[in-house]
């Protein structure tokens, strides 16, 4: 019997779990996938939005501004890359200018600081590669970029280090009310709990409907992206938006916190809640629309493309609260969900704690140490790390210079990686320009060795994604 069971190990579920760890309570996170951060949290713009976009008075606006403000401290506590690089919203015609002013006024009302409208020339002075068609721009200095994998992993690992239990490949199939709370049937057995927190992302309405009468519907809204090589990561230094529309914030051009350049997303509604395929149309639209913002879109420098699903709800706003006694929900979390995650985590945990009468946990340790990245260290610190553990001197991923030491750390640490994608999200091995061409065989070997499984059992991600299908006729005796 748990006090609280969180459904979903995306950034919202993990943030809630981490904040619940501040209380004396037994907490469990149920995740249908094999790892944390496998849904919307892994495929988004990775932006910490300023907060001028959401209508004033909405939970979106409130959580956005609050989450943005919390991000500095959170990134320090959880040891994750975060940078306040600022953002510009571009306007291409004088007739759109009033829209920019509306946005600015809304931002001021929402509590966003430092907003200012620039002329086209001022904007180009700030960002020389902006298109000549830009006639004005809204500048938001508090906007930032973050690594969404690390943010989610940071919350999750810190939660686990403070006693939260994670169960993977445990999708919830049925929910029943019991005398003392709820009984959840999952792929790996039943779970009894006093309270439930539904943080099931793009499936949160389906989870809601397992327990309660239908209240809201979520439409998966696909967003396709192109990621470019680090050689063009400096095309812009700020996040470049176009004027938002009712379909969302439009296609952006932004550096990532790791120095790549990200273009996207599109916005198209799909029916299938797992439809993360890219399309020729979508990828074409990304490049075409991005070309409005900057002088030259580096299409030849694309190293990968991907698609993520926004949990677009028919509620128009985040659903945050207690929907039935002991049944809490953080649902319809589309943009600015990533930004809002720290605030949603704190808000939901406090709500649950007050309702259940949980006591504070004086032993809670908010500090998490991420994988030590050789690339981030000074030469002296790097040399010292290799002396301490020679595996840090053996480079496995050439493009991102990731060492065997980092990969082993990613597997052995709290909630360690069990798949190629798990290693990739924790270390960046395979995320560079060769897209895992060189490091795949080595990482497969390291995973098999560390997990003590045959190489043929190592997966890319979910069940059924085994990378190798068997041995050759001579069965590994080639060399």
């Amino acid at each position, binding site marked *: 019997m748990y006090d609280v069971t969180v459904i979903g190990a995306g950034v919202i579920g993990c943030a809630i779990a981490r904040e619940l760890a501040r209380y004396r309570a037994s907490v469990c996170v149920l995740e249908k996938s094999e790892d944390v951060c496998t849904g919307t949290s892994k495929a988004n713009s990775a932006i910490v939005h300023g907060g001028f976009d959401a209508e004033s008075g909405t939970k979106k606006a409130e959580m956005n501004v609050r989450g943005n403000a919390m991000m500095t401290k959170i990134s320090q506590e959880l040891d994750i890359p975060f940078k306040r690089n600022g953002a510009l919203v571009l306007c291409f015609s004088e007739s759109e200018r009033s829209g920019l002013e509306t946005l600015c006024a809304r931002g001021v009302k929402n509590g966003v600081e430092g907003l200012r409208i620039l002329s086209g020339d001022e904007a180009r002075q700030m960002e020389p590669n902006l298109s000549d068609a830009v006639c004005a721009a809204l500048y938001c200095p508090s906007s930032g970029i973050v690594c969404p994998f690390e943010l989610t992993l940071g919350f999750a690992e810190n939660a686990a280090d403070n006693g939260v239990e994670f169960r993977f490949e445990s999708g919830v199939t049925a929910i029943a009310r019991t005398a003392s709370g709820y009984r959840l049937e999952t792929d790996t057995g039943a779970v009894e709990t006093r309270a439930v927190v539904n943080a099931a992302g793009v499936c949160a309405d389906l989870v809601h409907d397992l327990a309660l009468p239908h209240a809201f519907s979520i439409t998966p809204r696909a967003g396709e992206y192109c990621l470019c090589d680090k050689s063009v990561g400096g095309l812009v230094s700020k996040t470049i938006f176009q004027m938002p529309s009712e379909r969302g914030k439009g296609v952006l051009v932004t550096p990532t916190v790791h120095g790549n350049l990200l273009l996207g997303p599109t916005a198209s509604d799909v029916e299938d809640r797992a439809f993360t395929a890219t399309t020729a149309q979508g990828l074409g639209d990304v490049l075409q629309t991005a070309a409005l913002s900057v002088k030259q879109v580096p299409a030849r420098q694309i190293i990968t493309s991907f698609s993520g699903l926004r949990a677009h709800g028919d509620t128009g706003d985040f659903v945050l609260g207690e929907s039935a006694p002991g049944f809490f929900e953080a649902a319809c979390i589309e943009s600015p969900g990533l930004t809002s995650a720290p605030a949603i985590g704190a808000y939901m945990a406090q709500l649950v704690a007050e309702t259940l009468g949980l006591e504070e946990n004086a032993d809670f340790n908010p500090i998490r140490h991420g994988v030590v990245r050789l690339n981030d260290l000074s030469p002296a610190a790097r040399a010292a790390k290799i002396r301490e553990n020679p595996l840090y001197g053996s480079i496995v991923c050439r493009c991102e210079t990731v060492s065997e030491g980092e990969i082993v750390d990613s597997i052995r640490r709290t909630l360690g990686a069990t798949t190629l994608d798990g290693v990739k999200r924790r270390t960046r091995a395979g995320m560079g320009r060769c897209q895992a*061409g060189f490091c795949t065989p080595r990482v497969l070997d390291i995973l098999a060795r560390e997990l003590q499984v045959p190489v043929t059992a190592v997966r890319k991600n979910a069940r059924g994604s085994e990378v190798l299908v068997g041995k050759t006729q001579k069965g590994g005796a*080639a060399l």
Partner: protein
Amino acid sequence: MKKDLVIIGGGPAGLAAAEAAVLAGARDVLLLERDVRLGGILNQCIHNGFGLHTFKEELTGPEYAARFEARVRALSIEYKLGAMVLSIAPDRTVTVVSREDGLYTIEAGAIILAMGCRERSRGALNIPGFRPAGVFSAGTAQRLVNMEGYMPGREVVILGSGDIGLIMARRMTLEGAKVRVVAELQPYSGGLKRNIVQCLDDYGIPLKLSHTVTEIHGRERVTGVTISAVDKNFKPIPGSEEFYSCDTLLLSVGLIPENELSTGAGVQLSRVTNGPVVNESLETSVPGIFACGNVLHVHDLVDYVSEEAAAAGRAAAAYLAQGERAAGKAIAVKPAGGVRYTVPSTIRPDAMPDALTVRFRVDNIYKNRFVSVYFGEERVQHRKKTVLAPGEMEQIVLKKADLTDAAFDTITICTEVE
């Protein structure tokens, strides 16, 4: 640490460069290899056909590499394995990391770049669809099969008819996999003719020219691909889509010289080859830094890599002996009329050997054309070729005697109809 000559990469280029440099008088040479053995990509090329020019016999990749390794050992050339170069500064300070030696720097008198190339990935092609397991670059699959002993799949579609793709079509077939089709975007194959015959035709594997993969199916594992015909602008033709069920897609869609280190050193790159711009000594825009092999431009035969690398090794030895040469007259070598690029792109007659090989590739399939060389306006070579193909590197030889005291500033290499 100080070294006269640091060679980065212990594949065929690095090995041949090291040998030639030492034979030409270089001392205190260090060869750095990031993998756990010398030989580079040859180690996974267990098919034969290597060394026909160099040794007049057919060797496998590992055999070819072993011969050069033996020479390097016989000359007692120092090499380090598992040694990854992290950066090269313009002043030729090389930063290296390895398990044994940790992080250290080397001040090099001269450097030879021999890092080879990498394969273009699915991402670079922006092929739409899901991102399941089962999409491999052909070279990765080759390593898995030939060195690790594992099968990446059982039912295979190959995109791209570069040599590695062709070789892997045969290799996968011999291992019991079914290779359903090889699709090629271009109206011609980018691979060697002999590989098309020996790897596809002999096994009845169809090659679909002017076709490409337009969608990848399958969520966890590849379940199939859609292949479409393309028009002459390489745009998929609607209505031509054909579904091929498979569990594996191998990509052999081009090689990219791996020049991130070179760029960091300030070496100027060619937009055509993606390799350094070099002179007759295979010296880059940064004095004392030389380049050879696939990091310079992608080769199709290792014999030519060895030959070119030896020239780079000799040039580096001469540089170390004589220091930076006073810049004498430089003649530009220009590609024209169907020739995409030349290596080198400038020649200083003072510094060139008695006979200099200029390598180049054409931009399309040409039949019964002439390869011509012009000194200024004057045509000095005119040689008929029955077939010229982008997949086959061509070469011409220039004599020092013809270029000394030249009155012209440009040498043009082109194809001509007559």
